[in-house]
C-alpha cells in the first residue's frame, strides 16, 4: 500500500489530497531527519538537554498510560506493536525516535510532537531500548 517507514506522508495524502505543508523534513532520509531533529532542539549542541526529573516522571506515566492505550500498560503490544526492550532489540534507534515524534503514516501511530519536545522523544526512546521504567506511584 505504501512505505510504512516513510516519515512524513499522511494517511489522507495517500487518498489523493495534498499533504500538509510546513515540514521541511519531508523526503529526507531517516538519518538526516534524526540529525535535523537533534539540531532543531539543541541548536549548536550535539545533544538536546534531557528532560528534568519531574518531566521524566510525567513521561513515564504518559508512556505507560497514554501510549499504553495501544501498546499496553506493560508495553507488550495491542493495536500497536510491543515496545519492550526485547521487541525493540533489532529496531533502528533513530527510526523509533522519529516515529514517536512524527508518527507512522498508514498506521494508527500518531505524531506526538504537539505534546513532546524532541528531547522528550529521544529520552523516551532511550528508556524503551533500555527497558522502560515503572511508573512512580503518583497517588497523593
Amino acid at each position, binding site marked *: 500500500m505504501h512505505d510504512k517507514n516513510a516519515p512524513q506522508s*499522511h*494517511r*489522507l495524502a495517500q487518498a489523493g489530497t495534498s499533504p500538509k505543508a510546513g515540514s521541511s523534513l519531508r523526503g529526507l532520509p531517516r538519518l538526516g531527519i534524526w540529525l535535523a531533529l537533534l539540531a532543531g532542539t539543541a541548536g549548536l549542541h550535539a545533544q538536546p538537554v534531557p528532560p528534568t526529573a519531574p518531566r521524566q516522571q510525567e513521561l513515564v506515566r504518559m508512556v505507560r*498510560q497514554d501510549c499504553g492505550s495501544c501498546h499496553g*500498560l*506493560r508495553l*507488550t503490544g*495491542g*493495536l500497536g506493536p510491543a515496545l519492550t526492550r526485547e521487541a525493540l532489540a533489532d529496531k533502528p534507534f533513530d527510526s523509533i525516535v522519529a516515529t514517536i515524534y512524527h508518527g507512522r503514516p498508514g498506521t494508527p501511530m500518531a505524531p506526538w510532537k504537539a505534546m513532546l519536545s524532541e528531547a522528550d522523544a529521544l529520552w523516551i526512546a532511550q528508556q524503551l531500548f533500555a527497558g522502560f521504567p515503572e*511508573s512512580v506511584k503518583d497517588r497523593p
Partner: protein
Amino acid sequence: MNRRHCLSLLGTTPLLLSGCASVAGASGAPADLPLRGTGDLGVVVARATGTLAIVDTSQRTLLAQVTGLGDLSHASVVFSRDGRYAYVFGRDGALTKVDLLTRRITARVMQAGNSIGGAISADGSLVVAQNYTPGGIKAFNAATLELVADIPAAYENGKLSRVVGLVDLPGRRFAYSLFDANAIWITDLSDPARPVTTQLPNIGRQPYDALVTPNGRHYIAGLFGEDGLAMVDLWEEKPRARRILAGYGRGQEPLPVYKMPHLRGWAVAGRRAYLPAIGRHEVLVVDTDTWQEVGRIPVAGQPVFVMARPDGRQVWVNFSVPDYHRVQVIDTTTQSIVRTLEPGKAVLHMEFTPRGESVWISSRDDHRVSVIDTQSFATQATLSIDSPSGIFFTSRAARLGF
C-alpha cells in the same frame, strides 16, 4: 463453603490462587453478606493494579475490590444474563469470571497472548473473546470457561488478523472486524462444534472498532484508514458491507488521533445516531433510516466515547489526550452542546445507571470516579479508586451488543 470450594480448586488451577487468596481480604466473608439482587451492581476496572472494584449504584459505594486479574489495560467486561457474574477480558489474554455476590473469582483461563474484549451470547451460554495475538476469536462455555470453539482470523497465506469490534447477534452469532484484513466476519456458533463463518472482504481500510444497533440489525465498523464507516444490514438475506458517511473529512488534513475512538456504547437517539469522527474534533450525526449525514457537532477534542443517555435525550462525549479533562453533553433536541464538565484528569470512561439519572465517570489521573446527576449536572458522589478506567453496570446484561 466458598472458602472450601476455593481451596479445592487450588490444586488443579494455579491461576485461581491469586484471586482466592487476595479476595479473602475483602470486606466481610460471603456468609456474612445479606441477600441482595444484582440489578444495581457494577464494576470499575482499576487497570494499573489488576483490580476489579465492585460498586453499588444505589448507595454509590465501593463494595469490594477483587485482585489478581492481571494486566487490565484496555480491559472490558460483559455480564451473565442473571447479572451475577462479570466476565473480564484482560490485555494479557486472561478471561476471568467474577461473582459479584460472593466477590470472588470463580474461574480464570489464559486464553490468548493479547486480548481486547469480548461478548456474550443472548442465551448466556457462550462467552467469546476477541484477540490480537493470536488473531481471532475463541468461544467458551460461560459456566466453566472451557474452550468450545476457536476461529483464527486467517487471511493471506495464513497470516492472522487482529480482531476488533466483536458483538453478539441473535441466534448465537457474532460479528467482528479484521483490522489487518479489511474484512467483517459473521460466525454462527449455534453449534459450537461446527462454526459457520460468513466473510465479507474489502469493507474498507483498517476497521478499528464496531457496534451493532440496539435492534441487532445494523453492524457498523469505523475505519481508520479512510474517511467513512462500513455498514452491514444483517437482516438482508445475503449481508454485504456498504460505505456510509464516505468522505466525512472533506479532504481536509486530519488531526492527530492519540487514542482510537470506541464505538461500543453506541449513541442512538430517536432516528439519529451519533458517531465519533476520526481525526476531526466532531461528532457526526447520521439518520438511521437513510444512513445519510444530517449534521455534525464541533466538540472539544478527538471524541473517544460518544454515548447516549438511555432515554436518548442527551449524548455524552469524552476525549483523547490532551483534551481528556473535559466531558461534553449534547442536547439531542437541539444538536448543541449544553454543558462542558471537568470531572477530573484523564477521563477514560462513562457509564449511565440503568435509567440514566446518573452517569459514572472515571478520572484516571485523579484516581476518582465521579457520580453526576445527568439533569442538574451536580456531583452526587465521588469514589476513590486507583487509576480507574472502564465502568460496567449489570444492566448491560440485558442489552444486545454490550
